[in-house]
């Protein structure tokens, strides 16, 4: 059952962006027990905060009322000053002060050096999470990225929204 607060936000999204919007209510999720500890795992980081490389990539279509289902790949060596945000549904002031709040490249390198994780996967996948109609994203982008992650023997992934 969705909360009263979610019902209110659902009405706002319907009024302002997409009249057919509805929160998705799922049954129990898929669930795997780990075959090996995180300390021996290749770990990916995936974020919906709309980050892209300002020098080599086009921004997301942040003003589209249905969202933008595409993705950007960011190498873990990307200098923070090459990053930008195309996402009009959150305030960028925190990320602009410190990109570590949304894309923690250095943090993962530290965790790898400490042995908390086995290895930090070299690609961060970024998308723009405002997707009131997520069907195309789920049909196209998610399977493509899942295939890449499987081919590259990624064991685990941490997700952050904005």
């Amino acid at each position: 059952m969705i909360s009263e607060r979610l019902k209110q936000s659902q009405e706002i999204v319907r009024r302002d962006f997409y009249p057919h919007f509805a929160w998705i209510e799922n049954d129990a999720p898929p669930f795997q027990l780990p075959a090996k500890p995180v300390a021996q795992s290749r770990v990916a980081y995936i974020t919906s905060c709309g980050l892209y490389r300002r020098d080599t990539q086009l921004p997301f279509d942040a003003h589209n009322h249905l969202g933008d289902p595409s993705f950007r790949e960011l190498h873990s060596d990307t200098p923070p000053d090459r990053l930008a945000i195309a996402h009009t549904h959150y305030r960028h002031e925190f990320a602009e002060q410190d990109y570590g709040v949304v894309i923690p490249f250095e943090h993962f390198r530290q965790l790898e050096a400490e042995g908390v994780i086995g290895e930090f996967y070299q690609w961060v996948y970024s998308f723009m999470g405002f997707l009131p109609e997520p069907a195309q994203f789920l049909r196209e982008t998610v399977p493509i990225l899942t295939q890449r992650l499987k081919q590259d023997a990624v064991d685990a992934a941490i997700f952050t929204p904005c």
Partner: protein
Amino acid sequence: MTCQQSVGLFARYLEGNGILTTCVLSREDLAEAVKPPRTLIAKFPYGAPLGPPGDRDIQLGILREALALIDTASAPGERQPSQHRWHT
């Protein structure tokens, strides 16, 4: 807020394909609706999912908690509150 739904949906698909996932979300009610495989609830403002800017200890702490859930969660949909709090 649809950001939180979007990552939860992606995580469910990835987990169903054999890659273990933790979502770091700020909204417990969205976690309850979307039901990601594992969720760390960190009640931070939108735009700062890993914590306050400039506070690397908290940002690292959130990642440590999220990674630990991969090792320790024993049931589908497990949700754990973060020990870290927002400050300015």
